[in-house]
């Protein structure tokens, strides 16, 4: 029976001349969130991309339920939701269209569910406007709706509360808390504490 357990062992990553990840190890069980902290350039984004299988570490292993993720990388990646600095939205499509295509390439999504999540993150009033006309915070809310709709076990979040007001930051905390309650996992690079989310495990990356 799979248990949704992520383990990193002795990750070593070089980016050019820079030794970004130096023997990093950690383990995450269902319902746990790892908070990545560190100064700019410490390697938070690189670690998230390494966990996502977008970057290959020079040494070390990443295991999901005890199996190396490279044994079936495509399946592993299918269970990840990665939200980078910029929400993966097309400026010429509306928020709703973006979600239909983004989420739709992974899971069948019905209109009521889409509407429900858009309303949940406060994006329903502007969901039918082209993304290019939305503010950065509004785009982030649309992306958060997509994150929730993906329904995958592992969330990798890079500054998920960027550009959001206090209410939006609270929302991010609540969404992560719900993900953990469902038995999911999250790794989040954050500069500030997220309201509504407590007892996170923290990993401080050195520059």
């Amino acid at each position, binding site marked *: *029976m*799979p*248990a*949704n357990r992520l383990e990193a062992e002795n990750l070593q990553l070089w980016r050019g001349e820079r030794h970004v990840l130096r023997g990093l190890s950690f383990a995450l069980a*269902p319902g746990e969130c790892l908070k990545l902290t560190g100064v700019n350039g410490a390697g938070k984004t690189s670690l998230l991309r390494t966990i*996502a*299988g*977008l*970057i*290959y570490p020079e040494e070390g292993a990443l295991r*999901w*339920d005890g*199996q190396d993720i490279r044994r*079936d990388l*495509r*399946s*592993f*990646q*299918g*269970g*990840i*939701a*990665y939200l*980078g600095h*910029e*929400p*993966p*939205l*097309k*400026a*010429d*499509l509306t928020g709703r*269209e973006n979600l239909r*295509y*983004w989420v*739709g*390439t*992974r*899971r*069948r*999504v*019905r209109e009521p*569910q889409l509407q429900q999540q858009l309303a949940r993150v406060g994006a329903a009033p502007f969901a039918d406007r082209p993304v290019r006309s939305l503010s950065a915070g509004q785009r982030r809310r649309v992306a958060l709706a997509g994150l929730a*709709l*993906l*329904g*995958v*076990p592992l969330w990798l979040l890079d500054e998920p509360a960027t550009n959001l007001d206090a209410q939006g930051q609270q929302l991010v905390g609540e969404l992560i808390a719900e*993900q953990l309650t*469902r*038995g*999911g996992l999250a790794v989040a690079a954050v500069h500030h504490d997220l309201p509504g989310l407590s007892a996170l495990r923290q990993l401080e990356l050195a520059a």
Partner: protein
Amino acid sequence: MSAPAAAPLGFTDVAGPHCAAVGSFAAAGLALRRDLRLAFRKPAQLIQPLAFFALVTMIFPLAISPELGTLRTVAPGALWAAALLASLLALEFLFRDDAQDGTLEQYVLSGQSLTALIFAKTLAHWLLTGLPLTVMAPFAAVSLGAPSAALPGIVTAVLLGGVTLSLLGAIGAALTLNIRRSSALLSLLTLPLALPVVIFGARATQVAIAGGELLGPLELLAALAVLAVTLAPLAAAAAVRISLE
């Protein structure tokens, strides 16, 4: 390409029963529809290569000579050079926006076959560039002095050649994804690969105008198209993965 649904194997699902996974074929169909919709919202990008093709093939008769014999001699070269350059013009946009806004990363992380998704994107490119060029080819050929009996052969040649050009271009576009102002490098990478298509395409056009036996050059173009359909999406998908590192 129609791999089974990419339900995350080994994962305990946290999505709930409402979230049925989709297969790679359905995901590729969605990617194709999305690219077509986006293209029609930016018509200027759509028209640019077609206008280029039309202008080049119209200017040739004015610049060289209206004499039919001369025109028919240069027609194959002019037609295929214009088609190749028009196709290259549009290639720069094939992956660029998707790389910048994170869509390509999401494709890689979708758990779907990246090859199928890249094939869908390339098919969209061909539908938006190669197919219109094929439709325009008879008009361009007539303006270059081709007899009407030659038009079916020319259209078939451009149709087959256009497919190969789009697919070869996808490899070049994927390899130059992370390079700023990559259009020059993209051309350098793609042109040598595209030369056999241009040579056989021009030969087919020449034979069609002369009223000769077309089967040979068309079969060669078809063989190249089959080879490109089979291998180019795999190569382009691998190049995208490397570029995203």
